[in-house]
């Protein structure tokens, strides 16, 4: 397995308890995130995996309260940042936290930057807002950040507009912008999904380098298990708005306990097994259940090869079956479920 760096993992920075974020739609209440628990400690990289629509992005956006509020609502739960619940926090205080304590990098670099301001202006804006720097100092800081993320032609690039950069470059700018105020937690929401495969590796490397330099905690959201294996210390697996498994990277890949996780890991295409094994790509049959009217029991039951009658009765709770390894599956909790 890859880097097993203990980067002074310490106190709990972020603790999400029972988060429920729902969306009002024409056809009913969309329960995008339905009872999610998550903790991230200082300096830790936590990978959040799951397929599209499982609620990973909504969870991340909920942390920073960037969820669109007319259709969306945080209906329950707590988001504790260093002990303080963010949900009832007034806007002004929340703004002090955004980018200063918790920063985020989005999925779509092509549309995440304002087209009418230069790249330099946009980074300087963050720095001036949180650090109170003057124009000269902010510009210097901006150039420094751009240098760190390896943007070429610094002196010219600072005054260039986003459309003059490629997708990969824009994502670097986003990362520079996010890290410019030295936040304690960086949320990276599928930072490479929209990029070319070759660029993906570069960006992931960049994130690792930034982590070494700044030592911030990282919440890496992705649907690629391979990425998580490379970069994370702990993994949280989400499915249909809930967390189904949580473990350290070693534990998860050594012994995935939830049938969904097992399916995910098995479906990673393996180059090393090549022609010799002559196996078809593994898939998980079926489709994600509706989040408008979720089933009463385990949400994975319809697609689970091991489903039993018990699975349809009630949603299995997320329980720690081994030190550091939690799972929400009846199979793994023979005594716990009624």
């Amino acid at each position, binding site marked *: 397995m890859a880097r097993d760096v203990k980067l002074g993992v310490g106190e709990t920075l972020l603790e999400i308890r029972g988060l429920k974020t729902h969306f009002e739609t*024409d056809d009913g209440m*969309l329960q995008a995130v339905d009872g999610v628990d998550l903790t991230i400690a200082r300096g830790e990289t936590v990978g959040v995996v799951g397929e599209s629509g499982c609620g990973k*992005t909504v969870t991340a*956006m909920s942390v920073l309260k960037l*969820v669109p509020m*007319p*259709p*969306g609502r945080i209906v329950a739960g707590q988001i504790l940042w260093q002990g303080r619940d963010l949900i009832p926090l*007034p806007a002004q205080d929340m703004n002090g936290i955004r980018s200063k304590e918790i920063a985020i990098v989005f999925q779509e670099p092509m549309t995440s930057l304002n087209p009418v301001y230069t790249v330099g202006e946009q980074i300087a804006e963050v720095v001036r807002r949180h650090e109170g720097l003057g124009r000269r100092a902010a510009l210097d800081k901006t150039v420094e950040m751009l240098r760190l993320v390896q943007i070429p032609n610094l002196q010219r690039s600072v005054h260039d507009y986003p459309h003059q950069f490629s997708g990969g470059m824009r994502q670097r700018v986003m990362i520079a912008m996010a890290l410019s105020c030295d936040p304690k937690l960086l949320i990276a929401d599928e930072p490479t999904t929209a990029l070319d495969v070759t660029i993906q590796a570069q960006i992931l490397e960049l994130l690792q380098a930034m982590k070494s330099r700044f030592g911030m905690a990282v919440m890496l959201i992705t649907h690629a298990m391979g990425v998580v294996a490379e970069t994370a210390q702990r993994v949280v697996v989400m499915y249909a708005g809930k967390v189904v498994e949580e473990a350290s990277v070693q534990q998860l890949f050594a012994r995935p306990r939830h049938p969904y996780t097992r399916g995910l890991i098995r479906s990673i295409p393996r180059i090393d097994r090549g022609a010799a094994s002559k196996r078809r790509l593994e898939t998980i049959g079926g489709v994600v259940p509706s989040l408008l009217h979720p089933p009463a029991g385990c949400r994975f039951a319809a697609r689970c090869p091991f489903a039993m009658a018990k699975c349809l009765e009630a949603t299995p709770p997320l329980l720690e079956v081994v030190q550091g390894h939690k799972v929400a599956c009846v199979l793994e909790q023979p005594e716990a479920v009624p």
Partner: protein
Amino acid sequence: MDVSTPASLSLEAGARDLRRARPVSPAFEAWRRFRRHRLALASAAILLLMILAIVLGPTLWPVAINDIDFTARLKGPSWAHPFGTDDLGQDLLARMLYGGRISLAVGLAAMAVAIVVGTLIGAIAGMSRGWLGSALMWLTDLFLSLPQLPLLLLVMYLFRDFLKALFGPEGGVFVLIVAVIGGLRWMPVARLVRAQFLSLREKEFVEAARALGASKTRQVVRHILPNALGPVIVAGTIDVAAAIIAESTLSFLGLGFPPDIPTWGRILYDAKDYLDIAPHWALFPGAAIFLAVLTINFIGDGLRDALDPRKVM
């Protein structure tokens, strides 16, 4: 708590995909959306009433429009003359009912011209792949730059007598007004239709039709045009309102229909010098134009929500 945070596109898309569960006919969906627009519904009702009044009015209110009666000059509204009289003692209600027919006819005819011309040009531009498309679009842009009212006035000035000789006084002016108003309003329709064509002609279902051997015309008529219908209907509605305003403006400036035809604009033209002593004379036709245009605009807005829900305008 936070002030409301508007939606971001990426999240909306996800929510939308999950919503398309039930298959419902598009016409019913459109009606359902239109129904939610209370102002549009109210406007539709009011407009219907106005149209009924104009169409049935003269039979229900059989007063002559040019019954001169100097004893009843410039009288305000009364039982005998619900809208009052003008300076020749003519009944305003009767005149307005008559004029309404003309205004409505002009509006509908001009819209028809604009839609037909616009759809034709837009379709040809949209289907063509070479210089023809660009040339037509350049022509469209050119026409969009033309100063409308001055040009309208110029054409009226130059061609009025000629057409009067050809079609008679009212017919001539009618043809002229409809042709020019329609001829200056086809451009937005052409653009809309062309945009629809450009985006639809590469879509799979059109390719499928092409693969099955459908001729170009058939592709256009059966597959592409129905999809372009929505925005065109909305544009057409707005065109009726614009045409009514254009015709009224011309009449108000004294350059529209002949003086004995009491279109609403013409009545205002006569009334404007008597504002101090007989304000009702100007208020009724002005209010009628306003009401007609307002209701049509609201209906157009409702139709836009119903047929083209993505655009916020």
